[in-house]
């Protein structure tokens, strides 16, 4: 199903990914874990799209399927109309030149034995871009654009000689040096100090603007997603719960899970009497993993019979706005936070 406006750049069409829990491999009765359940969504050219959820929600899996660190078990992922779900060989390599990833942990995603120069020029070497001299120049430009300046001070450093924020900038430079069309940023600040996160966010915003990149930003914080993203999708245990323009999803959330994520954000400032939604059950109730709504076990507004038996359709509630909840239309309450209330990222 296509969205109303904007050209789609990347689309998921009924994409599922399963993992087998360890038991099976050891000869026991392994359980199949559904990481993504028939994910269908479009990411538009040039936008920053946010995928928001807890750990285990499948958000990282979605990112890894795009850059083909893993392969989908069902469904189709396509980029500008071309099916890329199961690309192989040279076509996969060509595709990877266009699609890059920034990982969560810059303490682990950089090779400790490679200098910054080697790290950032590696993608250029792999894809045989330019000669030695022009590669060095591209590396310097990339470092400059992520704020590692003057770049000459950094090119010969090794990861252990840099702070976490500087390492993550190197990782961003490495992802950007090939001038990709699409970048997946998987919780790029969760291992960094809160005060450094804002730096990284601003670099991503600037990159996106200056290079016209389409960006998938994966996060567990709706506040971070609101700052960066044009549109947001909220995902719970592999199922899309809510989708729409960032401000709309946050300020006029309709899904109880989105509301639970808003309630959970730490906040400070002149917040006034921010009304809580209280849609998250403290104690999880018995629920089936195969029938009914994925959020049933945690939902305080669920209808015990309906929600435990039927999967709510991901229906359009207004143009560009979709919610997977039987009671979406009845959720009239909007976010009451003041403009001077700040939220954790």
């Amino acid at each position, binding site marked *: 199903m296509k969205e109303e406006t904007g050209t789609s750049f990347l689309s998921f069409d009924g994409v599922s990914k399963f993992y087998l829990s360890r038991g099976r491999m050891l000869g026991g009765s392994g359980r199949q874990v559904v990481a993504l359940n028939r994910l269908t969504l479009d990411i538009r050219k040039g936008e920053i799209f946010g995928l928001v959820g*807890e*750990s285990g929600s499948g958000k990282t899996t979605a990112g890894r399927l795009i850059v083909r660190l893993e392969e989908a078990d069902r469904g189709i992922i396509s980029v500008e109309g071309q099916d890329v779900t199961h690309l192989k060989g040279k076509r996969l390599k060509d595709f990877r030149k266009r699609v890059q990833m920034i990982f969560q942990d810059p303490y682990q995603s950089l090779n400790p034995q490679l200098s910054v120069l080697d790290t950032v020029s590696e993608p250029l070497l792999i894809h045989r871009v330019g000669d030695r001299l022009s590669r060095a120049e591209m590396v310097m430009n990339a470092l400059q654009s992520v704020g590692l300046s003057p770049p000459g001070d950094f090119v010969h450093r090794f990861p252990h000689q840099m*702070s*976490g*924020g*500087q390492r993550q900038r190197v990782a961003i430079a490495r992802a950007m040096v090939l001038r990709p069309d699409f970048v997946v940023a998987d919780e790029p600040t969760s291992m960094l*100090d*809160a*005060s*450094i*996160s*804002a*730096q990284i*966010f*601003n670099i991503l915003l600037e990159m996106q603007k200056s290079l016209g990149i389409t960006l998938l930003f994966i996060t*567990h*914080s*709706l*506040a*971070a997603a*609101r*700052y960066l993203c044009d549109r947001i999708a909220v995902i719970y245990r592999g199922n899309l719960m809510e989708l729409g323009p960032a401000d709309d999803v*946050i*300020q006029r959330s309709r899904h109880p899970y989105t509301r*639970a*994520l*808003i*309630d*959970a*954000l*730490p*906040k*400070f*400032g*002149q917040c006034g009497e921010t009304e809580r939604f209280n849609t*998250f059950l*403290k104690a999880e109730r018995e629920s089936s993993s195969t029938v009914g709504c994925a959020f049933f076990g945690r939902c305080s507004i669920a209808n015990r019979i309906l929600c435990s038996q039927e999967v709510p359709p991901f229906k359009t509630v207004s143009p560009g706005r979709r919610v997977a909840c039987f009671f979406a239309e009845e959720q009239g309450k909007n*976010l009451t*936070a*003041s*403009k*001077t*209330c*700040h*939220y*954790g*990222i």
Partner: protein
Amino acid sequence: MALLEVEDLSIGYRTRLGLHRAVEGVSFSLEEGKSLGFVGESGCGKTTVGMSLMGLLPRNGEVLRGRVLFEGRDILSISEEELRLLRWKKISMIFQAAMNALNPVKKVADQISEAILAHSSSVSKAEASRQVEGLFQLVGVPKERMRDYPHQYSGGMKQRAVIAMALACKPRLIIADEPTTALDVIVQAQILEETRLLQEQLGISIIFISHDISIVADVCHDIGIMYAGELVEYGSREEVFDSPAHPYTRALLSSFPTLTGNREMLKPIPGEPPNLVDPPKGCRFRERCQEASHECSLISPAWTELFPRHKVRCIRFERKKGPQ
């Protein structure tokens, strides 16, 4: 009298490059039943302060100066044996990366009852086990999961178990070092809420250490902002959040977005903290400060009292107040 009184505490680490002055002249006090949050970037000395209160500085760490009075007794000068008796029974700690703080080959409940038995000889095994059951209930882990091993727990449950362990000997002070880092927003909110409730119910004093100022906002009565080993602002939660005085505090606060209104650009703090082997003279924040003036490199700012409890170390306030 305050439960904990820290005066002019300075701590250094001996390194190959020289003495790393991790904590410099930190003073604060904590009343019974109150909570205090220390906030600052990595390397600002907040964890070192916490570790020194437990007598757990690494081998190359050394208290250079200062006093730590706990219940009126200077715990920096007592013997290792006396300190061992104090630890867990009077002061306990929730460590950073709690998921690694549990012994993987022991049942969670056994680890906690072990802590109880080690510190009170009068308690029987059965009584310890009853106490553990109570603790599990208190921190919200189902009783059925007591006999599980740590790997069978989720991240949030492990964190709760570690909190239960910290509570096991009914301490008067808990030091919680980044207790929610690496947890998800929803679990984090639950843990913070639980910490706050426990603190109120049991009247325990808590020192909460975090790099994230938004986290301490809901939990702490008082906030101390640390930068490059020094305390630069100190006050009640309301004072620090509603009228932040130090440029560093204001910079920290402006790194967080809102959910409504215009999307204002966040203003991150430029640059990196200074090297503490050879800390800069004058104000340590001046190189990253938007409001720094020539004088900031000359003299080290002294404390200025803004309100009886709200104080700040910034030369701009000294100037405003004028000579005393």
